[in-house]
């Protein structure tokens, strides 16, 4: 049911921004950004519940919580980066958008290094010496 | 101090004149206002300068000097804030104010091919106070009456300027118009030609002074034409004229006589002899046009009756009562 609301909101915002575009493009961009924010805020609630469920599973299956945290961080970074890039791409600044995506990837890589090393170590342990 | 005079004075001068001593204010004849020169008043024959507080001074040094603003304000009040509507009178050099006072003006004249077109930058004012003394003529009236014809004689009032000539003939006109003696008899139709609007002091054609019920006034009209017009239009029994002196005036007087109406006129002069050798009046006297001559003087104050002569120049005996009583 929420999906209808979101889609409705998106449609309205799109139409409004079209109206404003030919007179004052900046307002159209601001409107788009604002709608994006609103929809994200709306989703935050859902994401929060998903993450809690993941945490419970991790706790039950006593995986090291550190891994889970980094994974969550990575997902957060991904979200924000993607959100920012889209908004800026919407504003017509392709270069800046790609720069943001790049920075997103790198940050994720940085976060991922400890996990990758841990995996490699376990794989090496499994392999007969 | 007459209310009508205070009304035309600007505020600064009003306060000054308000505290003039009462007896002087009563006798006031002239007020001389000159821009940046000492303020002077003339009363009962003498003159004094006025100080800032309304005190009277012999010497002009400490007298109040009206400012340019005072003069402009005075001119505005005189002309009801519209100098343009008094151009005609400015050209003659005087303005008559309600209350009968005549204000002589002095300033820079603008002439056009010899004739004065306009008076500008008016800096000198001479307010001559009109004094309407009822009864001024009672003493002299009995001598001017031609009983059989039930009309007054042709009379010429002779006196130097400012001796109460106008006051006398104004009262004469009033008494004759009301009927004499003391209204018992029927009044006569009186016609007044008031060239300088001084006898009747008309404002917008309406006389300010009481001149009797049967009087008509032709205001601001030259004497010669005025007399002719009155004779044709109003058929007066008695014609009153002020200050005749021009040839056409004499002509008009003769015309009036033929028309059957009596003439009372005035002329400048110190006495009968002085008038005798005046060019125009000489013929009038020689032809014995006037059957009565009244001579006034200032011996006992303005308007003192000096003597009355008949047409041949002999003195008419004056009864005790008519003799020069206190003015």
């Amino acid at each position: 049911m929420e999906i209808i609301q979101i889609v409705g909101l998106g449609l309205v915002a799109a139409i409004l921004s079209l109206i404003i575009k030919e007179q004052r493009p900046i307002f159209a961009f601001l409107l788009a950004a604002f709608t994006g924010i609103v929809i994200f805020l709306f989703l935050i609630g859902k994401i929060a519940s998903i993450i809690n469920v993941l945490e419970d599973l991790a706790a039950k299956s006593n995986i090291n919580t550190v891994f889970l945290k980094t994974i969550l961080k990575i997902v957060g970074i991904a979200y924000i980066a993607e959100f920012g890039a889209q908004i800026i791409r919407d504003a017509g600044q392709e270069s800046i958008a790609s720069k943001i995506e790049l920075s997103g990837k790198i940050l994720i890589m940085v976060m991922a290094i400890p996990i990758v090393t841990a995996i490699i170590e376990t794989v090496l342990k499994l392999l007969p010496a | 101090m007459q209310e009508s005079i205070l009304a035309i004075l600007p505020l600064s001068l009003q306060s000054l004149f308000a505290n003039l001593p009462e007896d002087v204010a009563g006798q006031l004849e002239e007020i001389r206002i000159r821009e940046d020169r000492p303020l002077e008043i003339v009363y009962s024959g003498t003159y004094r300068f006025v100080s800032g507080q309304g005190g009277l001074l012999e010497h002009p040094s400490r007298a109040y000097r009206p400012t340019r603003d005072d003069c402009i304000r005075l001119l505005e009040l005189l002309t009801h804030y519209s100098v343009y509507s008094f151009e005609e009178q400015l050209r003659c050099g005087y303005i008559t104010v309600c209350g009968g006072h005549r204000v002589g003006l002095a300033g820079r004249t603008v002439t056009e091919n010899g004739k004065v077109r306009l008076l500008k930058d008016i800096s000198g004012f001479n307010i001559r106070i009109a004094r309407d003394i009822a009864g001024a003529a009672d003493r002299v009236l009995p001598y001017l009456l031609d009983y059989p014809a039930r009309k007054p004689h042709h009379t010429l009032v002779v006196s130097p300027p400012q001796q109460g000539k106008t006051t006398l003939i104004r009262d004469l006109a009033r008494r004759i118009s009301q009927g004499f003696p003391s209204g018992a008899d029927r009044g006569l139709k009186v016609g007044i030609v008031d060239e300088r609007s001084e006898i009747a002091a008309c404002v917008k054609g309406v006389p300010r002074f009481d001149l009797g019920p049967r009087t008509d006034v032709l205001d601001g009209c030259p004497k010669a034409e005025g007399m002719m017009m009155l004779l044709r239009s109003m058929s007066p029994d008695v014609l009153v004229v002020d200050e005749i002196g021009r040839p056409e005036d004499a002509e008009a007087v003769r015309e009036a006589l033929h028309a059957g109406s009596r003439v009372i006129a005035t002329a400048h002069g110190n006495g009968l002899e002085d008038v005798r050798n005046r060019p125009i009046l000489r013929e009038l006297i020689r032809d014995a046009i006037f059957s009565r001559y009244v001579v006034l003087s200032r011996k006992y104050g303005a308007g003192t009756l000096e003597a009355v002569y008949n047409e041949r120049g002999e003195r008419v005996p004056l009864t005790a009562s008519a003799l020069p009583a206190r003015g």
Partner: protein
Amino acid sequence: MNVDVSAIFQIAGIGIIVAMIHTVLKQMGKEDMAHWATLIGFVIVMIMVLSRLNDLFSEIKAIFLFQ
């Protein structure tokens, strides 16, 4: 949820009106006034958007356990 919808309409309304004011003023020859009006409109909308962005980021930080 519906607060945001009205906010969206608000932004759209401001945008449209400021645009109209701008054109009217430009037509009348008062260019500078027009630019001023647009600037003010923009600032207002910017403030609204930024406050919302601030909310969003703080929410994300809270959820994704950023330290």
